[in-house]
C-alpha cells in the first residue's frame, strides 16, 4: 500500500470519528409538548409569541431578564425565560426559534432566532391595508 493511501485512510478515519462525536451535539426541532417530555434536554422549539400575555422586560430592574409566553402550532403554551436583553423585534416577529431546555414548566432559553415577516413579501394584501386608510397625500409625505 502506498503511503498516500495510508494518509487517506487516516484522514477518512479522523473524519468519521469527527462526525461520530457530533451525534451528541445533534439535537432536534421539537414542539412544546415533546420538549416537556424531554425536560432538561437541549432542543429547538419552533413557536410563536403569545400576544395575549405581556412580555416582561424591564432593563432598569434587570437588563438580563426577559419573560414571555410562547405557543406552538399544536396549541401548547409555555412560559419562556431568556437571561439576556430583549431582541428588539420580538413583538414584531412572526415566528420564533427558541433554543434551550424545559426546566419544570418554564422554558429556559439560551438563544432566540426571530423570523420577522417582510410583510411585503409574505402577505402583500396585509401590506396594502395600511394604504387603505388614505391619510397620505402626495404633498405631505414627500421628503427629500
Amino acid at each position: 500500500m502506498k503511503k498516500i493511501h495510508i494518509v487517506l485512510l487516516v484522514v477518512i478515519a479522523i473524519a468519521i470519528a469527527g462526525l461520530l462525536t457530533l451525534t451528541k451535539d445533534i439535537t432536534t426541532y421539537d414542539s412544546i409538548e415533546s420538549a416537556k417530555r424531554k425536560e432538561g434536554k437541549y432542543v429547538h422549539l419552533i413557536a410563536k409569541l403569545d400576544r395575549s400575555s405581556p412580555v416582561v422586560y424591564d432593563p432598569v430592574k434587570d437588563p438580563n431578564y426577559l419573560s414571555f409566553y410562547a405557543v406552538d402550532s399544536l396549541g401548547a403554551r409555555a412560559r419562556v425565560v431568556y437571561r439576556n436583553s430583549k431582541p428588539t423585534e420580538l413583538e414584531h416577529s412572526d415566528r420564533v426559534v427558541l433554543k434551550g431546555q424545559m426546566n419544570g414548566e418554564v422554558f429556559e432559553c439560551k438563544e432566540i432566532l426571530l423570523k420577522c415577516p417582510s410583510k411585503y413579501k409574505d402577505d402583500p394584501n396585509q401590506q396594502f391595508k395600511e394604504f387603505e386608510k388614505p391619510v397620505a397625500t402626495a404633498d405631505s409625505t414627500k421628503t427629500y
Partner: protein
Amino acid sequence: MQYEGEHLFIGQLGHFFVLLSFVASILATYAYFKAAQTELSPETAGWLKMGRLAFGIQVFTIIAVFVVLYLIIYNHYFEYKYAYQHSKRSLDMQYLLSCFWEGQEGSFMLWTFWQSVLGLVVIRTAKQWESRVMTVVSLSQIFLTSFLIGIYFFDIRIGTGPFVLMRNEFPDAPVLQDPNYLFKYLTDGKGLNILLQNYWMVIHPPVLFLGFASSLIPFAYIVAGLWKRDHQSWTKPALSWSLFNGGILGLGIMMGAAWAYESLTFGGYWAWDPVENASLVPWMLMVAGIHTLLIYRSTGHSLKATYLFIPSGYLFVLYSTFLTRTGVLGDTSVHSFTGEGSTLYWHLILMMLSFLAVAVVAYWRERKNIPVIRKEESMNSREFWMFVGSLLFFVSAAYIIILTSLPFFNKILGTQWAIGQDVEYVYNRVMILVIIVISILTAITQYFKYKDTTRKYLWSNLLIPTVITLILSALVSFLGGFNYDKYGAGFLAAIHLAMWAGIYALIANGTYIFKVLKGNLKMAGASITHLGFALMVIGILISSSKKELISINNTGIAISGLTDVKGKAENPAENVTLIHGVPTPMGKYVVTYEGDSAVTKNDRVYFKINFKTGDTTAKKEDFNIYPNAFLVKGDEGMNLSSNPGARHYLTRDVFVYITSWLNPNAQAADTSAFRNTWVKKGDTVFYSKGYVLVDNVITANKNDNKDLPVVDSAWLSELKVISQDGRRYDATPAYFVKDRQPSVKVDTVYTQNLVLNINAVRGEEIELGIRESNAVMRYITLKAYGFPYINVLWAGTIIMVIGFFLSMYRRLKEKRG
C-alpha cells in the same frame, strides 16, 4: 386604464435588454461550441467571430440592464417593484448601489456582470483555449441571465425580472388599481434593510461576487482540457486564474467578516453562520486545488485530485447560492435571505445538476487517458506534504458543508436534526486541530524540495526558525495569559498548540523569504500568502480566546439550574443598564451614558458613551464611543436596530452596542404616585429595591436662624438610600414655607428610580413621599466587548491577498517569458 405618472418605457427597455442578453448568451454558447467542434477547419474562424460578437452583445446588454435599473432606483420610480422594495427617497446616495445587492435580481445581475468581464479577459488571453473555455462561460451566462428573464413557460414563471411593476405583481390590491396610485399611495419605497446601510455593504458584495464569478474560469479550463484531451497546457492559465480566485474570494469573505464585526451584533467577525460557511467552502476547495495543481505542474502527481478539487470550487459556489437564496436554511441562519419560491429552488438545482453533468461527462470521456504516475511520492518531498495539506483542507471543507447542509438534509429526508447547544464549538473544536496541522505544514513544506530533499538541507534551513519558534512559543504560553477555560484543559491546550503552530508558520515563512529566496519578493508570493495566513491564525486565536466581556453584570438574579456545556455555573449576565449621566463601573472602566442625538431623517439615533479608567489604573484612558441605532416601525411601537460603535486602538478594540433604549419621546405618561409616610429622624421606609434611612431632619425658621434670608421656615432632610445590592445614595429633599405658602424641593436618585419629597411637616416629623417611577429616567442597556489584537487578523488578510496576487503576477510573467 390610464395610470398617472408612470414611466413605462424605461422598464420595457430594461426588459428588452434582459431578453437580448439571454438570447445572446445562448447564441454565444452555440457558436463557441461549434468553433470548438470544428477546430482547425476553415469554419472555425467564422464561428469564433460569431461567438465573440454574441458574447459582446451579452456584455453590452447586461451593462445596459444595470444602467436602466440604476436610473429607476435613482429617480425613485416606485411603480417598479424593485425600486419600491429596496429603496426610499431619504436613502443616502452612497447606499443606492447597495439596493442592487439587497434583492435577488440585483445579485444575479452583479454576478452575470462579473462573469461577462472575466469572459472578455478570457477572449483576450486564452488563444487556443478560447472556444472551449468560452463555451462553458457562455453556458453559465445562459443560466444566470435566465434568473432575470421572468417570462412564463406554460404556467411556470422562469426567473424574476427586475423590471416588474407593482400593479402587475399585486393585481389583488385595490389601491394599485387607482389611476392615481403613484401620487396617493406609492409615494415612497420600503427602503433598504438597515443592516445593509454600511460602507462595507457597498463594497463587500461586488468583491465577493467577483470571487464567485472567477471560480468559473478554472472550472472552464479544466472542462476545456478534458474536452480537448490535453492534460498539460491548460494548467498555466488555470493556475493564474485559480490564484486570482483564491485572493479575491478570500478578500470578499473577510470583507464580509469585517462587516459582521462592525455592524452585526453577534459581537464577532465569524459565527459559523451558514451564509459565511457557504462562501468559505468554495475558497477552501479552490486553495486545495491550487496546491494539487502546483504539484501536478512540478511532478506530474495529483492530477486526479486537481480534477476533483477545482471544479468542486465552482459547483459549491452554485450550491452555496442554492443554500442561501432559496430559503432552505430557513430557521438556522441569522441572515438567511427570504425564500423566493419554489421556482428558484428548482431553477438552481437544474443549474447545479447541469454543471455537475458537464464536469462528470468531460471527466468520464477521458477517464482512461488521464496520466497517472505509478511511482510513489517520497516522504522527503514537497509534493507529499502539500498533498496531505490539500487533502486535509478538502476534508475540513466537507465537514463544514455537511453540517451547514443539515436543514437541506432535513428537507429531503424529513428529519428534524439541528446542531445543538453550541454551534460555534462544534466547528471550532475540529477546525482548531485542522489549523494546528495546516500551520505546521505551511511552516515546513516549502523547505522540502520537489521529488526528494536531503535531511541535511532540511535541517540546516529549518533549524533557525524552529529554535526561534520554540523560544517565542514558550514566551507566549507563559506570558501571554491564555487561560480560555470555557471548554476545559483540552481545548486550552489546543489553543496553545495552535498558537505555536501559527508562530511557526509565521517565522518559518519569514525566514524562507530572506534566507532561501534572498528577499526576492517577486518569487515570494507563496511565502507571503502563507505568512498572511499565519498572521490570520494568530489574530483569530488571540482575539477569540481573549475576547473580553466588559459589560459584566453581576447584579442580576442568580440563575439557578442552568449550567453550560462543561457543567460550570452560567456566565455572568452580559447586559448593563446605564442611566443618563450616572457613571457606572464596568470592568476597568467607569462608563457614562452622556447623551444621544435627535432622531435623524433616517430614523437613526446616535448615542454618546464615555469610557474612563479609574484613577488607580496606570494607563489612563478617557474616550467616547458613538454606537447608533435605527428606529424601525413595528406593529407595536418602535423597534431598535442597533449598529455597534467601537474605539479602535492598534492593539485592541473596545466595542459597544445598544440592546435597549427608552425613547423619551415615545414614553408613556408617568402614572406612578407618591407614597407618603410620616417619619422622624432615625426612621426607615422601605421601597421595592431597598430602604430609605432618615439620617437627620433639620428644622429652621427665620426667628432663630439668620441664614434663612429667602424663606420663612425650612425643613431640611438628610436621607440615605440603601439599595438591595448594598449601594448607598444621599438625598436631601426639603420643605419650605414662605408667606404661608409651602414649596417643595424634590430630590431624585436616578439609579434607583426614586423621586423623594417632603409632603407635609408636623413639628420634627416630616411626611416623606417616595415615588418609584420609570419616567424619571433616560437609560440605555448595552453590551461592551474588548477585542485584543483584532488588527493582526485584518493585517494578515491583506498580506495573504497580496501574496495571492504576487503569485498570480509571477505565473503570468512566466507565461509570457
